[in-house]
């Protein structure tokens, strides 16, 4: 196996206890970390001048219901450094009925809407988020449609004027 990149080495030295696993495939680095460590790890990635990850490219989640894992969800972060031209993927496993992880919206403002989308679609709560409400679906929507146990044929009642329980707008 090739030598670890600067980022993975730095992370392993600094957060040894919270790094569950790392791997590197054709130059793409991935670190799987303990969910409690997401804010310190993200802070380090952003503020360490050698790493300088100033761009949050993506923040999403995976529902591992049918993947045979012990955890139910994974939240996935993709960071890129515009100055150093390197990137890293951070994954963190979450379990339980109401999965939660700390928000990184205070570090990257762009995380705000990503975290709202993950909340909307997967029902993962982000602690400390400034305004964690649905972003794509409407407030009356029940459930989180990208969860693997959301019934594929399930249809929800129409909302707005003229729908059951609502006066017509006429």
């Amino acid at each position: 196996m090739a030598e670890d990149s600067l980022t993975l080495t730095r992370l392993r030295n600094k957060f040894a206890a919270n790094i569950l696993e790392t791997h590197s495939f054709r130059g793409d680095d991935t670190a799987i970390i303990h969910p409690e460590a997401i804010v310190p790890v993200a802070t380090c990635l952003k503020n360490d001048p050698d790493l300088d990850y100033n761009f949050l490219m993506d923040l999403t989640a995976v529902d591992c219901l049918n993947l045979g894992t012990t955890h139910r969800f994974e939240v996935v972060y993709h960071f890129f450094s515009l100055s150093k031209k390197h990137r890293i993927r951070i994954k963190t496993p979450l379990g339980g009925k109401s999965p939660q992880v700390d928000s990184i919206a205070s570090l990257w403002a762009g995380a705000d809407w990503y975290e709202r989308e993950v909340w909307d679609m997967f029902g993962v709560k982000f602690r400390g988020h400034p305004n964690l409400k649905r972003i794509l679906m409407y407030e009356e929507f029940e459930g989180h449609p990208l969860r693997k146990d959301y019934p594929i044929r399930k249809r929800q009642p129409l909302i707005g004027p003229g729908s059951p329980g609502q006066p017509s707008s006429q």
Partner: protein
Amino acid sequence: MFSQGFFTSQLEKAVGWARKYSLFQYPFVTACCGMEYMATASSHYDIDRFGAGFPRFSPRQADVLFVVGTINHKMAPVLKTIYDQMCEPKWVVAFGVCTCTGGFYDNYATVQGIDTIIPVDIYIPGCPPRPETVLDGLMKLQERIQHSRQEF
């Protein structure tokens, strides 16, 4: 007095004739069908030949609501409000398969046919419908207007 140049008709038929050839449309365009709607409206297919060449972007001034493109649950209240704001007489055209049945968006977010929200007069299927199909639908709507009871 009536020596030349007059004809007799029934008032209802005359009103129907006038209405079917002066259709002011409200294009409620949400998706890719809008491209086909524009093609139909432009010079090559020229929807103006049928007296329906004048889109109005105020529902108060429109006769026909063209629902062009996918309607999702979040958009449904807006569509219903636009329909309610239109003055009588009014007609609705479901343009494209998404508005007819939901199309291949058979999912949690999409309204499975706009006739679950508002009454529809003409369904134009297709993904998207060819301009010829749209003109055919328009002519069917005109026929319907001509033969319906005119309230005035």
